[in-house]
């Protein structure tokens, strides 16, 4: 006879909060220009915690005059300091930054979870370690550019304008800044409006690393700041990660300007599960693919393409698995699903989910207790989805999975490719020859086989088609920031 029926459920784990006492936040932050924090001339705005809606700090807003000053600082630093510095020395600065990120890793992770809403488990174990690794990796390229296979004597482009999104704030910053600096460029970077906090702490790290003033400038603000930045005439290179709609606009406005452009945009990735998949790991891969980071991932596996003969079993197991996902306080170490980043994003996710239901798909959500305050959306699965459904075509950017079926590998490929997007895809099978043949035919820039959402600074990442162009990571990631005399470097 067991007395366990009377005890509270073990699975209701006691709170395990990560303390915020490690942070030393300021009440308000300025723009980081030319090595110093300075006042912005636009109207400052608040950054809030999306899990509690509480204010965290006031963030400066760069207007077009501030953008001018920042670009001028980057240009001066390029002309006088950075372009004259040896690659070895540039590398040393990047190594210093990598080490400082490692030293302040916990602080950065807590700030990121607080400001973005993602679970501390993710920012601590995934985001911040990758940030350090990214700087470490590109540090080593700074004095080896001749070996990068990008032509003889590759040269930096000059000043790079970079605009990044809110889903992996510090990691996206690392993806942009590290290769740009390694290649010899200076940078003006604009973090996303709702997630500027970790960038501000990063600016402090740049000061600790003694990086020469003006090499990296961080200007916070909203959409108009970003627009002013990418359209600034004295910028040589534009790198943008964000929505396809904005990416399109940037491509249009930079046309004919001579600026080199790379874009990393949206996706609607297919996660293809064959009947011979290692089933338990495939379930984990599906969950990780769409619910990691609350589905706020451009390469999220938002379409499950499951072989028809195992559809019911897979969906069944998936629903059971979702029963142990924990939604709640991002700073609790046991939280799996954090907050949606903003009210706007939550509204969008809700709207598209309602459309899904209206179109006839069958909606099922994990039984999570939703807190009163903050922006939350329970992991949701739609079955009975057709290829023409809005939820099978549009990027939702939230924890919503659309399930479709296929009969043959050829059909899976056709359905997977049948989208204007082409960022990533997943393949689940125990058969190597099939995996490699399917990978051959998928029009996606990143293909994960029997895994998903794996990132490494040594591994190039980027999309086909409307998911953008250019690659970040690896040797290929240098190409965006270099031109070689022998390689058609003219305007």
């Amino acid at each position, binding site marked *: *006879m*067991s007395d*366990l029926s009377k*005890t*509270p*459920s*073990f*699975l209701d*784990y*006691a*709170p*395990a909060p990560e303390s915020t006492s490690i942070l030393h936040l300021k009440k308000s932050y300025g723009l980081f220009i030319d090595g110093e924090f300075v006042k912005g001339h636009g109207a400052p705005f608040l950054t809030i915690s999306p899990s509690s809606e509480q204010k965290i700090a006031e963030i400066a807003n760069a207007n077009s005059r501030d953008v001018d000053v920042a670009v001028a600082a980057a240009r001066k630093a390029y002309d006088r300091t950075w372009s004259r510095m040896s690659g070895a020395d540039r590398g040393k600065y990047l190594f210093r930054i990598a080490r400082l990120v490692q030293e302040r890793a916990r602080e950065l992770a807590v700030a990121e979870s607080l400001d973005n809403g993602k679970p501390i*488990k993710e920012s601590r*174990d995934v985001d911040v370690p990758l940030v350090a690794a990214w700087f470490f990796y590109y540090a080593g390229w700074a004095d080896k550019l001749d070996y990068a296979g990008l032509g003889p004597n590759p040269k930096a482009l000059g000043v790079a304008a970079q605009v990044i999104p809110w889903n992996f704030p510090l990691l996206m910053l690392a993806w942009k800044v590290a290769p740009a600096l390694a290649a010899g460029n200076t940078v003006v970077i604009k973090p996303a409006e709702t997630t500027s906090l970790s960038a501000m702490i990063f600016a402090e790290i740049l000061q600790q690393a003694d990086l020469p003033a003006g090499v990296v400038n961080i200007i916070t603000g909203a959409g108009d700041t970003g627009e002013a930045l990418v359209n600034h005439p004295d910028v040589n290179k534009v790198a943008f990660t964000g929505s396809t709609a904005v990416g399109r606009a940037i491509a249009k406005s930079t046309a004919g300007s001579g600026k080199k452009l790379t874009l990393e945009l949206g996706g609607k990735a297919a996660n293809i599960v064959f009947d*011979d*998949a*290692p*089933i*338990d*790991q495939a379930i*984990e*891969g599906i969950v990780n693919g769409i619910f990691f980071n609350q589905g706020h991932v451009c390469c999220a596996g938002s379409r499950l393409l499951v072989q028809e003969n195992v559809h019911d079993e897979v969906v069944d197991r998936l629903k059971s698995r979702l029963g*142990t996902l924990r939604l709640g306080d991002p700073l609790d*170490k*046991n939280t799996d699903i954090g907050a949606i980043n903003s009210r706007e994003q939550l509204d969008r996710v809700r709207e598209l989910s309602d459309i899904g239901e209206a179109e006839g798909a069958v909606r099922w959500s994990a039984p999570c207790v939703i807190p009163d305050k903050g922006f939350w959306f329970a992991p949701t699965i739609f079955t009975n989805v057709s290829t023409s459904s809005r939820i099978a075509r549009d990027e939702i950017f939230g924890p919503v999975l659309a399930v479709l079926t296929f009969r043959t590998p050829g059909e899976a490929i056709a359905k997977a490719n049948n989208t204007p997007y082409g960022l990533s895809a997943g393949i689940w099978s*125990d058969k190597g020859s099939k995996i490699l043949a399917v990978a051959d035919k998928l029009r996606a820039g990143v293909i994960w086989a*029997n*895994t998903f959402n794996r990132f490494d600074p040594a591994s190039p990442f980027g999309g086909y088609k409307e998911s953008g162009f250019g690659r970040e990571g690896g040797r290929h990631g240098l190409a965006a920031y270099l031109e070689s005399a022998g390689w058609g470097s003219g305007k």
Partner: protein
Amino acid sequence: MNALPGINVVTSGRAIVSTALAPAERALGVLGGDLTERSLRLHLEGLPGVDAVGLEERAAALGTRSIKTTSKAWALNTIIRLIDLTTLEGADTPGKVSSLVAKALTPDPNDASVPRVAAVCVYGDMVPAAVTALGAAHGDPDAGLVSVAAVATAFPSGRASLRVKLADTEDAVAAGADEIDMVIDRGAFLAGNYGLVFDQIVAVKDSCRRADGTFAHLKVILETGELNTYDNVRKASWLSILAGGDFIKTSTGKVTPAATLPVTLLMLEVVRDWYRLTGERIGVKPAGGIRTSKDAIKYLVTVAETVGEHWLQPHLFRFGASSLLNDVLLQRQKLTTGRYSGPDYVTVD
């Protein structure tokens, strides 16, 4: 004891003969009436594969759960309640077993709130000493008493004739063992003689029958370290359940690697799938190499999040351990006193 009817020894690993297997109720239910070496092999080889990288990542992720305060206190007590306190040494004596039993009944002499362990686990010929030492406390761990588990079947290697293995089992049962921890024939398994492995389990289960018609509970040790691949562990787990095991157990503790979190996770997944298929619950016992509370807590989390916390009871989950108990006691002391404790404050058994 003579070989059971229907058992044919397959002499060559190459020739897959349609040898009939000893009837086991579960196997008949799942595989149907044509219960042969061939049908068993087809079934086992049709099971889904395991991606080791993904499995190990899932186990590592479960290991990041942060179990604090009240959850930790409950977990520590639960671990103790689920321990098979073990001594399996050539040098074991009745005195050693007696000392082990005393520890099992009163783990912390300074703290009466510490629960008892589930069982003591000893070699078959030490069962009488264990039974004597337990006295009135000998009984069902679900009822707060302590049972006696005996390793048998030429533990740990299993390299002996079936006759010897069954005699080993019968002796232990006759001496009062409530549970038998048998080893499968890993050589036969790796050579592909699934039918032989199956039949031996059936035979041992039969030897667990007492005069009054009840059965000692059978734990089947897979020795996962020797089976080597996760695919093999999955197959062996299914085979052991089909053949009638009440528990599947990872290891003898005499081979490295012994229990690991990923391999235990895999076995729990099999048990979960068996439950989905039949509604029947099978137990899981990781044994060997679990020395710290921190590690043991990861196992509790893995059980709860894979098959559900209903499994965290003595009749469905055990830790095969010896030094784990003292580490749990030290952690308990820290929770109650607020300061770190030391080896002088727990007893050696």
